[in-house]
């Protein structure tokens, strides 16, 4: 009896399953197809962007919020859950912070400006040079910063290769006479490293933009009587401008927040902001943890502000471009 009912049950179950499979097979697919392809294209685009935006938002935005919570004592090891701005007071009232801020801005501005100017020249020069040349100039692009730092230390330090060459040529009497280029007060080593590393990066971006410019534009200008310099100034440069802005923006942000380069190649005092953060973060005194985070947040805030200023100065219609109202106009060009 029980065996019979079991078999019956099994058979019923199987048929029931089959029935539902049949019932949903076409429908499920149709439903899905109907859903995706009939969606508003704008909504589709947002859905496609959702994974990337939410991961970046979670990691970056979430990280920032957690950092903020820790810096004001709401969460964390030392925080007792009550709001406190002590960490910020300590940061803002310390002389080291203002000196470091000055140094970091100096390095970032000088390195970005130098690399950008050199890259514009190099990109224009490479535009008509062979492919081998543009390839060779991309050499430092995939190189880790640490390898560049090691190479520059061994090249430019007082006992480095350059100093040895000058000595054997009789140009300097001892390694003491070689100018201090690494760990120096002016941070020349840091600047040299960034120019060496970032010029190929900016050049690569600018070359891509240059190759996209129709040569007819330049020819027309020349036919209308413009000299090569005028042609560069009034035709090429304005067309390059968006590329220049975005490339130098990435470089500025990177240099401003860079840790290992000034740590190993820079001056010992004052230190750049990221080094200050690192020292507070690794301090044995756990109270310094919230100071480190407050410093880090100031660093983020300053770089976001400088980006905003930079974009605002760079665009003809400040901010319009970024907040979407002009996207139709942008699309037409």
């Amino acid at each position: 009896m029980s065996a019979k009912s079991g078999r019956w049950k099994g058979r019923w179950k199987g048929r029931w399953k089959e029935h539902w499979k049949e019932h949903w097979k076409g429908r499920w697919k149709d439903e899905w197809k109907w859903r995706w392809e009939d969606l508003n294209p704008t909504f589709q685009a947002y859905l496609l962007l959702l994974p990337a935006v939410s991961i970046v938002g979670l990691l970056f935005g979430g990280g920032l919020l957690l950092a903020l919570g820790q810096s004001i004592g709401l969460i964390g090891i030392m925080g007792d859950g009550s709001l406190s701005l002590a960490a910020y007071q300590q940061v803002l009232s310390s002389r080291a912070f203002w000196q470091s801020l000055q140094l970091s801005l100096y390095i970032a501005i000088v390195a970005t400006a130098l690399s950008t100017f050199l890259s514009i020249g190099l990109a224009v020069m490479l535009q008509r040079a062979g492919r081998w040349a543009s390839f060779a100039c991309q050499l430092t692009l995939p190189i880790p910063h640490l390898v560049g730092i090691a190479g520059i230390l061994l090249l430019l330090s007082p006992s480095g290769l350059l100093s040895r060459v000058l000595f054997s040529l009789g140009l300097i009497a001892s390694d003491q006479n070689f100018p201090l280029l690494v760990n120096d007060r002016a941070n020349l080593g840091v600047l040299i490293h960034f120019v060496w590393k970032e010029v190929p990066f900016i050049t690569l971006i600018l070359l891509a933009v240059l190759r996209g410019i129709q040569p007819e534009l330049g020819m027309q200008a020349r036919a209308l009587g413009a000299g090569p310099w005028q042609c560069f100034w009034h035709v090429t440069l304005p067309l390059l401008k968006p590329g220049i802005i975005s490339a130098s923006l990435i470089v500025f942000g990177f240099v401003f927040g860079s840790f290992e380069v000034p740590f190993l190649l820079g001056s010992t005092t004052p230190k750049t902001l990221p080094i200050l953060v690192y020292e507070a973060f690794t301090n044995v005194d756990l109270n310094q943890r919230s100071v480190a985070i407050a410093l880090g947040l100031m660093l983020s805030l300053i770089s976001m502000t400088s980006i905003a200023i930079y974009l605002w100065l760079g665009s003809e219609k400040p901010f319009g471009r970024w907040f979407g109202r002009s996207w139709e106009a942008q699309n037409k060009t």
Partner: protein
Amino acid sequence: MTRKIVLLLIIGVLFLPFLPLLIWSFAQGWYFPQLVPDWTLQNWSDLLTTSTKVGQGFGQSLVIAATSTGLALLVGLPAGRALGLRNFPGKGAIKLFLLLPIIVSPLATLMGIQFILIRLGLSGTIIGVVLVHLLPTIPYMTLVLSSVYANFDPDYEIQARSLGASPIQVLQQITLPLIAPGVVVGALFAFLISWNEFLLTFFVGSGRVFTLPMVLFTALQGGNTGLSSAIAITSLLPALIFLLFSSRALNDDAAIGGLGNV
């Protein structure tokens, strides 16, 4: 002619820092003012000993870079498609938002993420490091792929669909083959960014995740110049492969142009 000389000079200067690294990696006690050292292979054979942690670092770097590249590709492909092919309100703002992690200093973010990672038991693990490596890799991947898609004609897809291909067939036989070269560039780019990353690993790895840059950093501070140079040159391996394989693709302006249009 002068243009050629200037170019050769620039290329020479770009090469210059590699010269002392190469010499040092084969040198034994190379003191000032010697121009040429006593040659040795000691530094290179030292790399193979476990105490230098180079083998371990190489393996961990490889795992971390490959995983974060794969994950970045997974979310970068749809995002790149939306940014490359569609126009919608707020596009500029979304692009800027995706760019924030590579422009804004990640230090504060890292310390915030570290707070959660410690509670999840992921601080000092490879998973934690992969997670923070997504911060720079996703934006770069998305930007490169968006310009790859901008040069892709979606009419091919529509045609294939109207001829009866299923969406998956279209993806496999039309879309992926057409965007493959750009995808390779994006993947190589992301892989290198993760491979070269120092700061993120340094903060989240808590000294327990030893990628190759961490090994190099420790060696540089340790002061063994010969060994550091050998490690430095070893860590160039993927970069060299990148240059070899992408020499054509890098000149593919479509892929890199994306960075110039943010």
